[in-house]
């Protein structure tokens, strides 16, 4: 590679590198650093007031009603994360394994499983909202149609069914993603290794747990991390399906909704508070960053052990 010698070339490189750097600096790095700074001030509407130290953090974590709201939203995020871990990533692994066999029609199945992934979350959310309508939705109409009307529910109106409806919609939307990441991982497993295993055992289970799983572990690490970050930033789907308040009674409230509501206000409270909103953003950010690094480091370490 040519070394940097002439000032002319130096200028040329500068011209190439500065505009993209400026974009990232101005629209990513600067806002994120500011978000940390904002959290330490008292805000009156859009005007920055006095420096208040950690008071905003204290308020959202320990002062009612914020304390219960924070805990409730966090709890729901945790549920969503673990549920999607099973529904989305677990199912994704099984589907990837099935696709990997190259059975007849695998190409078609692969295209189908990824189709919802390219759709906008807004479309998916509205679609499921219409399907789950208590009176006219296709779900309840079908249940009544096959004589199982007793199973028909106001899905989005009950605390316990609402959050699970959202989780299922999300899993439907995104299951194709882990599926194809796992599939790509499986396809990189060398044929010789599989042949060698075949000599030793006929058990499918041993083959999966002993060979396939360890070898797709790098894919798993990435898929888990992305799901974790995604689950704790969840916003669009609950926003459309449950509304900004996490209806009913906060049973679908997640940190994303709560943060947005606190920062920009909602119709029923009219209060907006950038200070508290920023404090929440910083807390979510730190939590996600710390846990995501832990996941990555731990899983990476395990990859090597296996």
């Amino acid at each position, binding site marked *: 590679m040519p070394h940097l010698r002439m000032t002319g070339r130096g200028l040329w490189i500068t011209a190439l590198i500065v505009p993209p750097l400026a974009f990232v600096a101005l629209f990513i790095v600067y806002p994120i650093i500011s978000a940390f700074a904002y959290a330490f001030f008292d805000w009156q509407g859009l005007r920055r007031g006095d420096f208040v130290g950690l008071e905003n953090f204290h308020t959202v974590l320990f002062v009612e009603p914020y304390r219960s709201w924070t805990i409730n939203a966090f709890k729901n995020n945790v549920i969503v994360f673990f549920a999607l871990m099973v529904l989305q990533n677990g199912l994704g692994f099984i589907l990837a394994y099935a696709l990997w066999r190259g059975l007849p029609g*695998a190409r078609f199945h692969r295209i*189908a499983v990824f189709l919802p992934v390219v759709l*906008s979350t*807004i*479309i998916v959310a*509205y679609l499921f909202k219409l399907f789950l309508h208590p009176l006219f939705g296709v779900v309840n109409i079908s249940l009544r149609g096959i004589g199982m009307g007793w199973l028909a529910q106001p899905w989005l109106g009950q605390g316990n069914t609402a959050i699970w409806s959202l989780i299922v919609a999300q899993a439907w939307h995104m299951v194709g993603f882990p599926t194809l990441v796992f599939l790509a991982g499986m396809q990189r497993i060398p044929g010789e290794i599989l042949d060698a295993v075949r000599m030793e055992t006929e058990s499918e289970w041993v083959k999966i747990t002993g060979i396939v799983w360890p070898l797709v572990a790098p894919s798993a690490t990435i*898929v888990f991390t992305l799901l974790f970050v995604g689950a704790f930033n969840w916003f669009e789907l609950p926003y459309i399906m449950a509304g900004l308040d996490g209806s009913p009674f906060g049973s679908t409230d997640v940190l994303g909704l709560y943060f947005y509501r606190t920062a920009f206000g909602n119709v029923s409270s009219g209060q907006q508070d950038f200070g508290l909103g920023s404090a929440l953003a910083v807390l979510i950010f730190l939590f996600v960053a710390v846990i995501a690094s832990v996941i990555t480091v731990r899983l990476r370490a395990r990859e090597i052990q296996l």
Partner: protein
Amino acid sequence: MSAASTTYYDRRGLLGALGRDGLLQIILIANTIIMLAPIVIMIFSAFKTTPQIFQSPFGIPDFTQVGNFVKIWTQTNFLRYLLNSFIVTGASMTLILTLGTMAAYAIGRYQFTGSGFILMFFLAGLTLPLKLAIIPLFMLMRDLSILNNQLSLIFVYTAMGLPTTVFIMTGFIRTLPNELEDAARMDGASEARIMWSIMLPLVRPAMVIAGIQNVVPIWNDFFFPLVFIQNDDLKTLPQGLTTFMGEYTTDWGVLFSGLTLSAAPIIIIYIVLSRQFIAGMTSGAVK
């Protein structure tokens, strides 16, 4: 792609695999039905009247009945939203690919002090959830006087798209051979000329991957318009869809055809280019 595994299982004998593969086949078919049914119902319903939807949600409609689409075409701002989405996505993609290629070329093709640091700087942007910085971004857009202006979206999307693009393109550009470049340099071609006419034609495959990885989230984004754009004439498709769904709540036929129309562009492109889509969208997670 799956040639190796197919041969492996072929050798294993059909009968032995039948039971287990039968189960896997059933799982695949069931899953495909679950994946496609909502989309099929959506498209079918788009051609029905509201009472038809309530009475026979699964019935095959009369596809010549396009009243719902006509209504959307003539009575709503739908075309405007579609056009806005094209403008915003198009402008963002142009900026992302231009700036991304510039940065990747500089980092991948030249050695200079700080290049490692600059790459790290870009990569840091990969992992940061920008949604959480929405308050400072909102204030920034206000200070730049581009709130309620599509430039705010284009700038944010560009910044968000650059890290992955630089990441993918730098890796690719580093693998390109030096010979052509060196020969051109001997001939006295300028650096700009070398980049433009010799190297750029070679990086197109990476640009496609980087492009697809970014175009889908940008086209589908809802969060940033929600905060930045208020004027109905400036709304992008996902955001406009919420306005539209609010206005036509009573007419389910129109609702479903609105959803169908919004989904149609990306579904069609996806079906045509499914291989590139899958490769592009999973490229960040597959190494």
